[in-house]
């Protein structure tokens, strides 16, 4: 029975109604009904929701957003299947459907054997309960029986490495201890099918490795694993087969190496992190030859790691000596169309009025680690002099991701911030109460 199919997904689809379902107030619902009854536009429709997916008009159907459309695949016993795709491709919707958190609009999922899904670790942890009590509670929520937990208790406490605090309420735990305990419970689930989200993106490197090893064990013991991750290294290490989602549809299914190649090239075909620009027809004074985004290792990359520095390289050519030249660079956060960084070459300050001699130049601007939060960014580079624009390019893209898990510990949502700067936060205990208030008053 080694080739037995344990998961069969057929024609799976999930629609979300946009704007109209979530008013939460009777008054708003009546307002919407009344507007629609009169043939007026719904005053409560949320255009913000739609604008997030503005480039995906094909996913809109009669006011519904097709989060997932006509997805079919099968998984065999003992497979480790990776699910990859860009943000918004439908990965989390597929995950929610597979773990039965929500129901599909169309199609079906059939599974054989006990299924456990880990969309986050520590679900249902109660801060007032001790570590030990929470092991039982969390285990029960994840579908473990009391006897299984009892049997595994020693192993779970051992794995968590926090034995001396196991009878302390978890509200006194550090976030690291919390995650360790939570993952320890999850790691001792014994399902036949395990569905894992990017919960591995937490904890320090050593603990992450321990968790990956544990998943490898699960796989080695012949059980089936579905693994959703942005971490392509982890995917290629763990999974023999991958499916690729794009725009809510299944666009790739096959051996991991092939699918990942397809994924990387699909990302780079539309949104390339590097471009070379042809010579303009006719004479020119200045032109941009090439712009590229490079990672910490100096190689061109469409994806940079939040915790690592990256650079933008600009190659340009001056055909003549240009007086008052300005080379500018902008980094734009696409989701809100906001320019996050705007720079220009300080050596070219135009009050100096000296000309840069003709020739080829390369500038390399280095950005510190943790500057930009996760998301998709666009690079715009322009050359001008005294208001005369020579050349502007803005078709370079890169994505900042967070594999190490700096911004998403404990499965929290991405923080709604553009910067991810990790600044020191010194705190001192004050011996006396608010001395500065009097000083402020006397001043």
């Amino acid at each position, binding site marked *: 029975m080694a080739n037995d199919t344990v998961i069969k997904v057929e024609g799976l689809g999930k629609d979300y109604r946009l704007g109209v379902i979530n008013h939460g107030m009777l008054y708003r619902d009546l307002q919407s009904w009344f507007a629609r009854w009169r043939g007026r536009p719904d005053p409560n429709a949320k255009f913000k929701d739609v604008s997030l997916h503005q480039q995906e008009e094909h996913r809109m159907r009669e006011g519904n957003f097709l989060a997932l459309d006509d997805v079919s695949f099968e998984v065999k016993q003992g497979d480790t299947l990776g699910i990859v795709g860009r943000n918004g491709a439908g990965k989390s919707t597929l995950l929610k459907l597979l773990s039965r958190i*929500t129901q599909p609009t169309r199609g079906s999922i*059939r599974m*054989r054997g006990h299924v456990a899904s880990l969309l986050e670790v520590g679900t249902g942890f109660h801060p007032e309960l001790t570590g030990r*009590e929470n092991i039982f509670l969390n285990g*029960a*929520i994840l579908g473990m029986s009391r006897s299984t937990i009892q049997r595994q208790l020693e192993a779970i406490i051992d794995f968590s490495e926090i034995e001396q605090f196991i009878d302390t309420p978890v509200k006194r735990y550090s976030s690291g201890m919390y995650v360790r305990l939570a993952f320890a419970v999850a790691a001792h689930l014994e399902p*036949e099918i395990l569905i894992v989200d990017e919960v591995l993106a937490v904890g320090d490197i050593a603990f992450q490795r321990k968790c990956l090893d544990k998943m490898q064990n699960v796989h080695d013991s012949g059980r089936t694993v579905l693994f959703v991750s942005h971490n392509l290294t982890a995917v290629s290490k763990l999974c023999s087969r991958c499916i690729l989602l794009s725009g809510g549809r299944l666009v790739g299914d096959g051996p991991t190496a092939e699918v990942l190649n397809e994924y990387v090239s699909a990302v780079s075909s539309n949104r390339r992190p590097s471009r070379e620009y042809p010579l303009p027809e006719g004479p020119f004074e200045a032109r941009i030859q090439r712009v590229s985004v490079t990672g910490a290792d100096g190689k061109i990359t469409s994806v940079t790691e939040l915790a690592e520095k990256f650079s933008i390289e600009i190659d340009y050519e001056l055909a003549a000596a240009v007086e008052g030249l300005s080379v500018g660079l902008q980094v734009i956060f696409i989701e809100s169309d906001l320019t996050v960084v705007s720079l220009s070459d300080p050596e070219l300050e135009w009050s100096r009025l000296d000309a840069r001699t003709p020739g080829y130049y390369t500038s390399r601007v280095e950005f510190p680690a943790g500057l930009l939060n996760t998301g998709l960014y666009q690079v715009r580079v322009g050359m001008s002099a005294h208001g005369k624009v020579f050349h502007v390019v803005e078709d370079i893209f890169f994505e900042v991701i967070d594999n190490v898990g700096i911004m998403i510990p404990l*499965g929290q949502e991405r923080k709604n911030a553009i910067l991810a700067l990790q600044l020191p936060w010194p705190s001192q205990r004050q011996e006396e109460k608010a001395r500065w208030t009097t000083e402020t008053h006397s001043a």
Partner: protein
Amino acid sequence: MNNLETGLTTETTDMGDRKWDTVVTPSQGWLNFDLLETWRGRDLIFMLVKRDFVSVYKQTVLGPLWFVIQPVATTLVFVLLFGTIARLPTGGTPPFLFYLSGLVTWNFFATSFGKTSDIFASNAAIFGKVYFARLTVPISSLISSLLTFAIQFVLFLIFAAGFGYLKDPLMAARAALLTIPLVFYTAMLGLGIGLCVSSLTTRFRDLGYLHGFALQLWMYSTPVIYPVSLLPIHWQIISVINPMAAPVTTFRSLWLGTPMPDPMSWIVGIGITCVLLFLGLSLFSHTQRLATDTV
């Protein structure tokens, strides 16, 4: 192959006679519960009940004593307000026992209702991340309220004995026997109405604000602090329509020998409870499937 031993065979596939354990389809129907899965969640129910109890008295000085202090303190306030100041008649029964008997029954209903009424809102974080038979949550909160009731009921018996009631063992045995269906009725009423409200609040948050206020009004229209006989004759219809009037009055009558309620109020009450329970379960089964999309 051990994956077949979990059972729960739901469907035979078109590929032959191999069975699937889990089939997820866009399901219809209004009373669609996976009872087998709920039964398998009994360990979870136990843990949820335990959580409810343990977390209540952690970091409190008096701990579990609060289960006792709250009804006694409220009763004393009632004795002062309605007995000593307003001088509401209690038909010869000691006011303290009269109010306590009403409160113990009413509190049981109010907690059964209250705990089930915000299931989707208060468990949104868990429901959004893990699937388990959702019915385990209302069941566990019902068990928690039942345990609270048991504590307060024993408290009531102690006070009743102290006041010289419960002398006749035969009477007490009869009362105890009849209290069982009475408690069951109250639990089902609280559950039914709580499920209705919990499902509707996922769409209309307004209900969340309304329910505390409505519960208070409801208590005053229930004979908790006054005997039904105090109401003018044409107002007594309220205690026939109000499905909580019958259990409160009957409980008091069983243990303290006050007059029994109009039998009509039981007939109407059972009818209302059946309708609300059916409605509540239907709404709940409908809501549990898509609640995570809207909350």
